[in-house]
């Protein structure tokens, strides 16, 4: 079988605490092994003078499924003049903010990302999500089904029925081939069924007689009852509104009384996603300001929380979220085309294009807040880089974000070209921060950290023997002088990427479609006839499909990696 030795690179691996030491990485049959375990026939990859890291792990992006595809189909202008023609073994690839599935796989791989999580799967549309995942080459993928506005969940949690909630979650993860519990605007999206919303954690959900706080607490409890690999993954109430940081702190505090219970080494009970959108002060767009410090001061003290940034990249992009009422609010602000889908018994989704302009003060402030969250972080194993792709910007901008985080000079250059630079500086902290993150911290934020938060640290995000051989070489020498743009360039086009032992990218170009897997979680629970009866009843009375036609059959997941959990 295949053996490789990646020699003489500067290795950054937080799982082993390696901080740029020169080291060799040995690979045998798709796994990392000790150098002594490979034969002399191993193929050598010379990484001298270059940076070596594990394959990066995307914890939150919208890359597959109904709303992503609606975004593609309703934005022909997003494809105009962006296409890359087909090549040997490569399909044609196009789209800027919402790339085609082929382009999604190719572009992640070229940046050294080897695993990605689709952040919001509407259960009724799970089959669609998996069809797209199947057509996304190279990267391992999983998807989070949404639970925060689900009628079963709200009805069980209204009566504090944790065991029933857990049994329903276990059933849904299995039939949808899902990974984790995603919560989007808890209660607010159900309220949107009537054109309403829940803007604080205590706003009652119409008809269901429950509050967002009760939904979140109940789902955390059910998650830990099951011991799932990942924690509850939350997009909080009141996203995108001035002054919402108090709602954010209220929600985060809900996690305080829970403790992580799982066999996967995960320590947090709540992952709070795209925190940038939730760290706003002021009470209108005129006095809008950053509250990243207040939010991160709290996050830094709480070991049971992980977060991702949701950095604004200052591009024209396409916002899409299961937060239906937010997208309606946004289209009323920018008057751009609005798509919405309410999904029976489960969730909703909205889509609106958005132009983050460096000439608009609010956009400049949003840019600063995203970076501040990363820069105020004390433990980079708990804060991860995302753009909430494509909401705050397309994922292809990660190298640029890394540049901004690693270089105060690069940040200053950007600020200098802002139209409202002085006003932006007044409303944020960014100009006063001279911190520059290290490659080790970047490896924590993009590899080891997200893998640990996902409960997949045994597979991904590190280079220790026994882990999957996802190895990336960047043409970047940390020990020689460089310009900020060199960082962006190196991280945009990896010199070498290996996915589970197969070289997939060489010199920034895709050379192989790899052996992509779909990850899902099988959580075993005790038989629960009541929940099975409830499910049958809801399908008979309220769903528009029969229960027998709801399951995602196995052939939609042709190369699965199933994580087993036993909660019996």
């Amino acid at each position: 079988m295949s053996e490789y030795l990646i020699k003489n690179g500067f290795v950054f691996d937080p799982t082993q605490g390696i901080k740029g030491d020169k080291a060799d990485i040995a690979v045998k049959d798709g796994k990392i092994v000790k150098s002594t375990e490979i034969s002399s026939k191993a193929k050598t990859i010379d990484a001298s003078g270059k940076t070596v890291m594990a394959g990066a792990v995307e914890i939150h992006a919208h890359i597959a499924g109904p709303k992503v595809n609606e975004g593609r189909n309703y934005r022909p202008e997003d494809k105009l003049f962006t296409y890359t023609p087909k090549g040997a073994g490569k399909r044609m690839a196009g789209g800027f903010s919402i790339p085609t599935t082929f382009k999604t796989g190719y572009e992640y791989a070229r940046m050294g990302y080897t695993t990605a999580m689709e952040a919001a799967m509407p259960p009724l549309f799970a089959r669609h999500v998996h069809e797209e995942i199947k057509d996304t080459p190279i990267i391992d993928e999983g998807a989070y089904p949404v639970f925060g506005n689900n009628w079963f969940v709200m009805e069980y949690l209204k009566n504090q029925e944790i065991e029933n909630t857990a049994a329903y979650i276990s059933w849904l993860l299995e039939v949808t081939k899902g990974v984790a519990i995603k919560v989007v605007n808890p209660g607010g999206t159900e309220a949107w069924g009537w054109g309403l919303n829940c803007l604080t954690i205590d706003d009652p959900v119409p008809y269901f007689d429950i509050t967002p706080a009760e939904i979140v607490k109940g789902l955390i409890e059910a998650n830990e009852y099951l011991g799932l690999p990942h924690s509850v993954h939350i997009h909080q109430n009141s996203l995108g509104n001035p002054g919402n940081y108090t709602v954010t702190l209220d929600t985060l505090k809900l996690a305080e009384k829970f403790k992580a219970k799982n066999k996967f080494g995960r320590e947090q009970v709540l992952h709070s996603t795209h925190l940038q959108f939730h760290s706003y002060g002021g009470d209108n767009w005129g006095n809008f300001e950053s509250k990243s410090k207040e939010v991160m001061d709290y996050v830094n003290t709480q070991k049971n929380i992980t977060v991702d940034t949701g950095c604004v990249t200052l591009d024209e992009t396409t916002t899409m979220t299961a937060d239906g009422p937010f997208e309606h609010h946004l289209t009323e602000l920018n008057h751009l085309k609005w798509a919405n889908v309410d999904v029976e018994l489960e969730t909703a989704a909205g889509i609106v294009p958005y132009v983050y302009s460096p000439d608009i003060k609010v956009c400049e402030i949003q840019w600063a807040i995203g970076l501040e969250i990363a820069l105020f972080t004390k433990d980079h194993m708990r804060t991860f880089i995302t753009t909430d792709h494509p909401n705050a910007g397309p994922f292809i901008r990660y190298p640029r974000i890394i540049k901004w985080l690693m270089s105060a000079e690069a940040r200053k250059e950007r600020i200098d070209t802002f139209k409202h630079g002085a006003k932006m500086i007044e409303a944020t902290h960014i100009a006063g921060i001279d911190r520059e993150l290290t490659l080790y911290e970047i490896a924590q934020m993009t590899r080891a950290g997200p893998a640990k938060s996902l409960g997949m640290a045994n597979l991904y995000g590190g280079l220790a023997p026994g882990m999957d051989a996802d190895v990336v070489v960047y043409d970047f020498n940390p020990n020689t002088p460089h310009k900020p743009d060199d960082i962006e360039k190196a991280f945009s086009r990896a010199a070498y990427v290996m996915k589970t032992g197969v070289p997939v990218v060489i010199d920034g170009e895709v050379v192989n479609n790899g052996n992509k897997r779909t990850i899902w979680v099988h959580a075993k629970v005790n038989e629960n006839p009541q929940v099975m009866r409830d499910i049958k009843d809801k399908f008979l009375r309220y769903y528009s499909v029969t229960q027998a036609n709801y399951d995602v059959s196995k052939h939609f997941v042709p190369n699965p990696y199933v994580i087993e959990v036993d909660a019996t």
Partner: protein
Amino acid sequence: MSKSVTDVICPFCGTLCDDLEVIVSDDGKKIEDIYNACAIGAEKFMHAQAADRVKKPRMQQPDGTYKEVSYDEAVDYTAKMFHKARKPLMYGWSSTSCEAQSIGHEIAEKAGAIVDNTATVCHGTTLIAVQDVGIPSCTLGEIKNRADRIIFWGCNPCHAHPRHQSRYSIFPRGYFTNKGHKNRKMIVVDPRDSDTAKMADYHFKLEQGRDYELLSALRVALRNEPLPETVAGIPREKIIEVAEVLKSGRFGIIFFGMGVTQTLSKNHNIDNAIMLTKDLNEFTKFSIMAMRGHYNVTGSGQVLGWQFGFPYAVDLSRGFARYNPGETTSNDLLRRDEVDAIFVLGSDPGAHFPISSVRKIAKLPSVCVDPHITPTSEISKLHVPVAFVGVEVGGNCYRMDNVPIEARKVVDPPEGMLTDVEFLDRVNKRLDQLMGGKK
């Protein structure tokens, strides 16, 4: 002994009913009875059983008659047609599975083809409108559970989507609509007294071709701006009254069909209907949905979407994807002589295109893949019969509200009959051979 297959998906219209029960003979070869289907759906299943069904590919002869050929010859002819053509049109894709569509797209990339589906003559203009102004919509279960205001604009579900009203829109009792149709007010806009219009609480019998003006008038009424005495033949007072009815509901929906998409103004009609829906969301909750025709035209748009980024009329000729209805749409391509071969699968342009376009098809190298004999098959150079998707072979499909539902196999196809997927797969491999690893 007969056996019963339950939860069967109906491969007829975009309603994609998934509760059919089919009674099948013990050997799994014959359909004996069908429950829950509408008359048209039942006929579709029974047609698969017709004794005079064509079972072998047929090649057109110089005198216009057809001669049986083998599947090998059919594969070879088709692959050679793609190899030779410089801009072939691959049309149809609406009555087949997503799996077949996906292989078709691989062939299209290699051949530099244009992939267009039946939306081009049904809801293509809807897709243009969605690209211009978006679309607030929902799944059909939302309507069943919540809707109290239902508009049918330029569509006649009583005939075209027979179970739509009983399953989703008018009669069912849902979570918040436990009185069924008594909870709902029904408004129909149609120049004719259609059977659907006869059931309505309000019927706007508008002048043909004035949908755009009437939609605008409703939007003007919502903003309390002045209106002319009549618009599209409808008195001002009626327009204002209906605007109030729409505002006063708690959850409304506009269903629209080809009466608006094919009428003058076309995409603009839908555009304005969508904007009316958006406006209504300032007062209450409102959605809008296209009454899609073929059972998997929606799926074709989805697969094209994630693979290329456009829902129909996708031009791959230059090695990358482009899209512009008016240029890359089948009827414009045929009218302007832009294509040099045509491959049809899962539709019948011979029956559904204007005769001027059909004449162009008859002149081109052409392959028609269809279980039936159709006007298209009888003017094509090659007709390839295949198994019926949804009856003799399964596969994924998308309902009119984009909900994916996997069609089931109910009976075996006749012996030796290929499926769409199998035929396309063989053409794809043959094309690879012809191209010698290039392209």
